[in-house]
């Protein structure tokens, strides 16, 4: 697919793609130098959504920062909540009572549901950018169901502020278990339809196969994480390899890329990353079912160690001990790491958020040369770049 830009010797044209462009998934700007249809250079220009969330964290108390983590990655706000709360809990260490068992199960449940809805948007949008609008609508329809479940759970459709330091904000609502079960059944059926519609579609496959192939070594060196890393064949998932919460008990199966496009493709191409996301949806369905099985019956008290959902609420940590910590968790776009620095006061001293999309955008300049202009949207879609994560 790729042609060396150097072999063609035409006049270079510089294009500014974005920050307002429908297929850059937000406000990414790429300054593209093309030679005819072939890209010779693509320099990402980011920061159009830099909202200073890290700096804001220094001006709030620890627990007050949780709503801002929603805005760090609004496509999967639950996972962003979870990442911060897991990091803050580790920083607080033994000063905080452990999260009750039911609370941990609810966390896995909502995090995996949100992973599903995030991946649905990711695969849907990357198909839409390549001209297939219908799968996107199918994905959104399912996402609406997840939003409904979350709305009954915490009152918000998008920015949940549900997972808190020490547990979750509320217990599951009475119909939640049944609703989630129904949704998972429906989703399994829907995913088959989805795959028939787009995954095995030869036009879509050929647009993705062998585009922006990333080898395993490159992926690790450039700091790619999550499905992008696994798409290159690296078998690494923090839920299994550095388990947090109750993920250690769940026996997470990790799908990795293995040249799904067959003779058309190569290991680590855009199609592999797309398929890995679809397989992860299947895995999340399984994890949700398993978390539902493990869910202990509800207790009346929030801080009941088994049936509660929040560790000792009266002692929710105002002041963690002074220290510095880096904790990473697996969000849909890969490792979401929080570098927290505490000076022992009630406010964080410094928060740094490391996200999967940040690494992916950093790699664009390396990936794009030699590709066709039309492949840029394939690359952006297959890396699943979400801009608030990049800019924070």
């Amino acid at each position, binding site marked *: 697919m790729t042609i060396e830009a150097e072999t063609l010797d035409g006049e270079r044209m510089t294009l500014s793609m974005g920050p*307002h462009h*429908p297929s850059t998934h937000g406000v990414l700007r790429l300054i593209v130098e093309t030679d005819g249809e072939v890209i010779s250079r693509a320099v990402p220009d980011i*920061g*159009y959504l830099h909202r200073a969330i890290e700096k*804001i964290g220094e001006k709030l108390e620890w627990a007050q920062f949780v709503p801002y983590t929603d805005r760090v990655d609004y496509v999967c706000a639950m996972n962003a909540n979870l990442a911060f709360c897991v990091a803050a809990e580790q920083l607080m260490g033994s000063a905080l009572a452990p999260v009750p068992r039911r609370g941990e199960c609810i966390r896995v449940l909502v995090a995996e549901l949100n992973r599903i809805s995030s991946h649905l948007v990711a695969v849907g949008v990357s198909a839409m950018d390549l001209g297939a609008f219908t799968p996107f609508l199918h994905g959104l329809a399912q996402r*609406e169901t997840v939003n409904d479940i979350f*709305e009954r759970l915490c009152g918000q*459709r998008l920015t949940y502020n549900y997972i808190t330091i020490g547990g979750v904000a509320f217990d599951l609502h009475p119909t939640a278990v049944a609703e989630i079960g129904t949704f998972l059944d429906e989703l399994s059926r829907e995913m088959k339809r989805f795959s028939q519609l787009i995954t095995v579609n030869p036009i879509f496959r050929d647009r993705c196969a062998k585009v922006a192939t990333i080898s395993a070594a490159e992926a690790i060196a450039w700091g790619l994480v999550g499905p992008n890393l696994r798409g290159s064949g690296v078998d690494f998932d923090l839920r299994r390899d550095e388990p947090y919460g109750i993920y250690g008990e769940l026996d997470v199966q990790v799908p990795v890329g293995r040249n799904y496009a067959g003779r058309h493709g190569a290991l680590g191409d855009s199609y592999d990353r797309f398929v890995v996301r679809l397989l992860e949806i299947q895995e999340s369905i399984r994890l949700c079912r398993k978390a539902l099985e493990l869910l202990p019956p509800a207790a009346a008290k929030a801080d009941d160690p088994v049936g509660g959902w929040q560790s000792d609420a009266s002692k929710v940590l105002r002041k963690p001990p002074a220290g510095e910590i880096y904790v990473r968790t697996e969000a849909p776009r890969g490792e979401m790491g929080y570098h927290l620095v505490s000076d022992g006061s009630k406010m964080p001293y410094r928060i740094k958020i490391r996200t999967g999309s940040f690494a992916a955008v950093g790699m664009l300049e390396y990936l794009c040369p030699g590709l066709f202009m039309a492949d840029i949207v394939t690359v952006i879609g297959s890396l699943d770049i979400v801009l*608030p994560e990049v800019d924070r």
Partner: protein
Amino acid sequence: MTDKALSPGNGDDGVALLAVDEFLAWGKEHSLFYLLFATACCGIELMQTGGPRYDLDRLGMIPRATPRQADLMIVAGTITHKMASRAHLLYQQMAEPRWVVSMGSCANSGGPFSKHSYSVLNGIDKLIPIDVYIPGCPPRPEALIDGVMALRHRVKKYRTAGIRDRDPHVVAGGDCEFGSHPGKDS
């Protein structure tokens, strides 16, 4: 949806009689093409409003990628200082008469970032005039549709009577004229 403009007589025979400019105004009112200007979280809600459940298309609203073809700019999401000049440019590229809906607290006033952030523009109304404000973080799709319905009344007034309201309309909770709360019915 019955529309009075289309049935000035009794309208039983399926024939509507009306002046041509009224007919054109009716068309304009019911085909507000909007500029897909989504920067942040509110943009996801805008996307879902255009999605299968809320389906903005049924209101004749079709997203346009270029400002030249859009009547309406829905500013959905945070506008940072870096983005502000671009947003202003996009507005200027739209053809008159142009309408602007400010969706979400960020576009209204900077929202959760107004007080502590150094890089967020506290309200897009510093740069471009707003017709409808929709509060919420993010607003529900129903609120967005409600704002659009309010805007339609203005479009109609402008097209038929030539009056363009200057003071912005603010969507308030509780007076939703359109749609229900699908998430809350259990």
